[in-house]
């Protein structure tokens, strides 16, 4: 519906996921949400529930342990959704690039819309990124977005489950 589209930007709800971060970026995200920087003035709520959120805020180079959860959380967010990669590790792998136990950034697994640099990225940058993500959210359609890669049982049975069959069955507007 055309009428409701402008309101996406006014209430972007955030899901914050730590994919093996050192907590530096997490602390900055929490600082941005706290009274001093006050992200709530843009209508942002940290929901913690993928089914009700619009923006996926990921920190950390993707460790082998966290990548299944990353992909699963991403596929649980209903469209329209936007992924924001916060920090150098999440965008490129940062200081962990090329190490044996990490993937270099989340864009091997899920499509990223906004990259935020910095180690750790500052609250101002995160606020900018979320405002930008709101704009992208407004321009997106409700078409189903899939992760690039799936894992294990999820991969084998995932194609037969409703979420992935839905992509073929459901008509979009």
């Amino acid at each position, binding site marked *: 519906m055309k009428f*409701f589209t402008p*309101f996406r930007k006014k209430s972007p709800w955030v899901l914050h996921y730590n994919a093996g971060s050192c907590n530096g970026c997490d602390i900055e995200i929490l600082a941005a949400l706290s009274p001093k920087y006050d992200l*709530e003035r843009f209508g942002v709520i940290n929901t*913690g529930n993928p*089914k*009700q959120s619009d923006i996926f805020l990921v920190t950390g180079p993707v460790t082998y342990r966290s990548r299944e959860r990353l992909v699963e959380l991403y596929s649980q967010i209903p469209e329209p959704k936007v992924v924001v990669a916060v920090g150098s590790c999440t965008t490129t792998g940062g200081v962990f690039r090329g190490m044996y136990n990490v993937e270099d950034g989340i864009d091997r697994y899920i499509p990223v819309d906004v990259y935020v640099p910095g180690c750790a990225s500052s609250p101002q940058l995160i606020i900018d990124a979320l405002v930008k993500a709101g704009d992208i959210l407004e321009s997106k359609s409700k078409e189903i977005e899939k992760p690039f890669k799936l894992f294990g049982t999820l991969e084998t049975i995932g194609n037969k489950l409703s979420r992935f069959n839905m992509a073929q069955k459901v008509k979009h507007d």
Partner: protein
Amino acid sequence: MIWLWIALAPVLGGFVYGGERVMRARMQRRQGPPFLQPFYDMFKLLDKRTLIVHSPHALLAVAHFAVLWFSIGAIFLGWNLLYIIFLHLFAQMLLILAGYSVRSVYSHVGANRELLMLVAYEPVLILVAVGLYLVSGSFEISEIMQQSGYLPKLLPLFAALAMIVPIKVKKSPFDIGEAHQEIVGGVEIEYSGVFYEFLYMSRFLEYIFIYSFVFIFGGASLWLGGILVAGMFLLVNLVDNATARVRSVHMVKIIYWVAITLAVINIVGVLL
């Protein structure tokens, strides 16, 4: 005219919720969201793709909202107080059933907590109705509202009601039902899109429901009722900003030991 108010009850509750978010932001010395933020959220949720676990689960949310709205309508029309309390209980039971109907662990925890909250505040609500009956001689809200002078006689009962308001509007120290990120929203967890919106709007209706109980204590003078509601609103938000969450067991204990004792003492006093 009264039908218009009933029809606009969710919108009214939305204004209350929006105003509360702005006020809480001001209490924390920050700017806070726009006043109309709840409506922006609602419009956005209408535009999201909806994921449904199974259809009875989705239907129970709609039924919860509808029954709650009906009980609000009953309050505005001045029906029987006990009838309204049990209608509200029915609405809560629908929500709890919805929580148990999915396999999510968090949903089950949330439903358990909703039950605990029900166990805690329901006796107090009924005792409030009994107290109002003893003073006014009727359970009908329309007749209760024609008399006045409830507050001096029912002051401990009003304090008991003040203790259960945070449970109903899910504020600290008794916000165990949603518990922010601890149980990820409790029974709300598996809802998304349009069906989450029904739960979001039923939260607005909960505000109207519990604050109208506060309003009844004003009796015939609407000014006193308005002042009571405004004072309670401020108090609940101040306490919310100043306290941490208590454990669910402790909540039930606190309510049973303090609130019910206060209410029973008051009712015994009125009877004697």
